[in-house]
């Protein structure tokens, strides 16, 4: 067993894990983060995609021990604390970019990463950028539309004048809650 400490969706977890345990199994079976799903066993489908240290990874292809000390964001941690959807989530809803929704967590996380790298992608760049994520329901057309829409929303948000500086320094983000297990 190896001791690891990872922060998932803002909550810190310290656990002993088998060295062979995959990150996705650790997330699902130990931490109860079942929003991230397993669609294959060969790293092809991308359903298990999460952000690790800010970059998208297929969590079935990462050992839990490799995530030690890192921040993980899953689809469950994407919306704001007030429940406000991330622009990519909102666009998936608005554009009917999901049907059964099994690929959706991974697809959304890959799209988030894609837009972080390329805030203004062409349709072809979106299609290339998401080719590691398989969807069987939608034919991808509405997914491409959704990512395009989300990109526009996020660019508009980024170019808005910064809100007036608060008079006092903002409160620091709450410290991660430690959960033993």
């Amino acid at each position: 067993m190896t001791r690891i400490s990872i922060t998932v969706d803002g909550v810190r977890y310290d656990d002993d894990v088998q060295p062979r345990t995959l990150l996705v199994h650790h997330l699902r079976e130990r931490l109860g983060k079942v929003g991230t799903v397993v669609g294959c066993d060969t790293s092809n489908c991308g359903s298990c995609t999460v952000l690790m240290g800010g970059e998208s990874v297929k969590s079935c292809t990462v050992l839990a021990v490799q995530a030690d000390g890192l921040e993980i964001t899953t689809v469950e941690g994407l919306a704001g604390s007030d429940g406000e959807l991330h622009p990519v989530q909102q666009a998936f809803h608005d554009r009917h970019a999901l049907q059964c929704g099994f690929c959706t967590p991974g697809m959304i996380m890959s799209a988030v990463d894609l837009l972080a790298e390329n805030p203004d992608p062409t349709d072809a760049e979106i299609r290339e950028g998401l080719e590691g994520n398989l969807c069987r329901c939608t034919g991808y057309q509405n997914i491409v539309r959704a990512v395009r829409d989300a990109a526009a929303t996020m660019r508009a948000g980024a170019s808005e004048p910064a809100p007036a500086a608060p008079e006092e320094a903002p409160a620091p983000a709450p410290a991660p809650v430690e959960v033993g297990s």
Partner: protein
Amino acid sequence: MTVVDERPAAEVGAPRKRKEDARLITGRTMWTDNLTLPGMLHLAILRSPMAHARITRIDTAPALAAPGVVAAFSGRDVAETQGSLPCAWVVTDDMVHPDHPPLAVDEVRHVGEPVAVVVARDAASAVDALGAIDVEYEPLPVVLEMDEALGEGAALVHSDKGTNKSYTWIYDSAEAGHGQAYDAATAEAEVVLRKRYVQQRLIPAFMEPRSVVVDPTADQVTIWSSTQIPHVLRVLIALVTGLPEHKIRVIAPDVGGGFGGKLQMTAEELITMMAARRVGKPAKYTETRSESLLAAHHGRDMYQDVELAARRDGTLLGLRVRLTANMGAYLALLTPSVPLLGRYMYNGIYKLPAYRFECTGVFTNTTPTDAYRGAGRPEATYAIERAMDDLAAELGMDPIELRRRNWIGHGEFPFHTVAGLTYDSGDYEAATDKAMSLFGYDELRREQAARRESRDPVQLGIGVSTYTEMCGLAPSRWLGSLGYAAGGWESASVRMLPTGKVEVLTGTSPHGQGHETAWSQIAADQLGVAFEDVEVLHGDTRTAHKGLDTYGSRSLAVGGFALVNACQKVVDKAKPIAAHLLECDVADVEFSAGRFRVRGAPADAEGKTMADCALAVFAAHDMPGGAEPTLDAEAVYDPTDFSFPHGTHLCATEVDTETGRVTVRSYVAVDDVGKVVNPLIVEGQVHGGVAQGIAQALFEEAVYDADGNLLTGTFVDYTPPSSADLPDIVSDRTETPAPDHPLGIKGVGEAGTIASTPAVVNAIVDALRPYGVDDIRMPCTPERVWRAVQGGDRS
């Protein structure tokens, strides 16, 4: 003033964003594999590595010594009690129907067949212990190819049956009284096209692997399964296991589509039940993707020998189809019937004087086939639409012109077809004209001519597909006449809650289709309540207790009809309550725009709402004489006939004759699915359907090696298309309401898949006809296209 008695249609027809999405985009979905019960154990299944072998020795005892293992057993341990997986469709009296044990006992007949199971405290321990099970196999001869399987002296999949033929089923339009005899009608044919088209084997490849959890400790044994058919499954479990039906509860929680691949009673469901009941604790089995591709049922896999006879002017005289259909090693739930559903569709949208259809089902040492999106109808449509393009080429006629000369005119409906169905309505002219206009058909034909003239290495091809399909499975009387064990009705219930909110229970079982949204739209209109005030409950035999589930583009066509009827019963029950509240005679009450008003009252009169009536029956203090204090209602609808959506799909491909690469340059889909409840959902269904049809044309095939090992056992090898592989399509509609449906709807789930495969292959062949190419086997990979170009006659 005139009182309009029409209910408002504010919701039906609106592109409502889906209610389902909220949980799906935030990771709050309840997939079966997400479920954890106290004390739950985990299964791993040992599968046969041999396509055909006798099990000479099997010992599970060593697995028991492995860490965390609670139980292990093989087929031999449960041989007397495990029962046989059912086939619910006996297509002929003499159909060969072998036993199909969930766990193989003495013989394995395809790679991936379960032979033993380990139950352990966690999934990893269960998988680890599989290696300790000791099995010895004595190899037996393997037969994989259908013509070989039917030949003299072929190795037998089931040696005790003495044949690899399961059945031969014949339809003849003259014998059935729906047309002439083929030979007589075609005696004076001036051209006869004879072709073998091949439907390669496909894998449904739903994204959510199958998963099942069984809790044997509950008063009702509870089975959660990622299934399309919770209600059918409950009946089947009772029949197969002997467990009393009222002691069984089946739940299909959130289920990932599906596409027919989860229209099944699986070995894994029964094995998990056996395991859970043996150890007396909840147990879960979730398959890996590799297991799923190997062992979940496959689809298609048919040879289609087609003979199409015509006059030189293009007039069709007759069609003969000899179909050879691969059953795989066993008959699964609907295996033998899938090719037979095609019988009704080989004639397509055309007026044919004569039609003969012969189908032979064949056993091979492969995974059983069964329903995959369209189930028999895509295959049939592929054959007739490929044949129409080939015939047009033979006649030197534009393929659309050939179709125009033979299709059913829009003034000829209802039309009794040579296959014995009555098409309810349609307008093939309008759909085709619209598609041609959106596509720029004439302009593309000119470009094609120019490229041919200049011997451009990248040739342009145009593919046509004018399809229809039968939706709304199915009239129970029809199913019974064909040997299916169950009916085709569907149920809906409406519960009016005291505060005016509504619960709708449906017997359909959605897995991505958006029933919660669409059913809410229908109920909102029918009851005059807000869309947000409707909750749609499904997929649990305890709540939505009655139903026949979701497949065959039936849910809205049949289940939607039941819902409208249930809502109307609620309105009828509410009328006397409203009359009582309004202190008028019930005959004077009218229901409009969600309000009950006294006849002749001004349109803005307050009247009484459904919520007023719901509260009144809840209190029940002052019911009108003898009225039962409830507004709840249930309706079961058995369709009187099928509905027949149709459409025209046009595909332009660029084919690189030097590399064999095919690029879909443009794709136009004009579908007529009748009236539409939610255009957003309909468009999504078309997109996804077209994508799966393109996948068959260009990418996907389940391939076995000579020993019967599946070579396409991962997504790398099976190659379902990614976003980078598929084009944007143009999707539009024409609208011919279904005359016999209260909402005028027809069904859309399978249309795209049915239409698109022939459109794409026709386009590729059209590009290469100057190279002497008249067919390419699917999937049309660069290698196959390049070989066709090399091997064809260039003259």
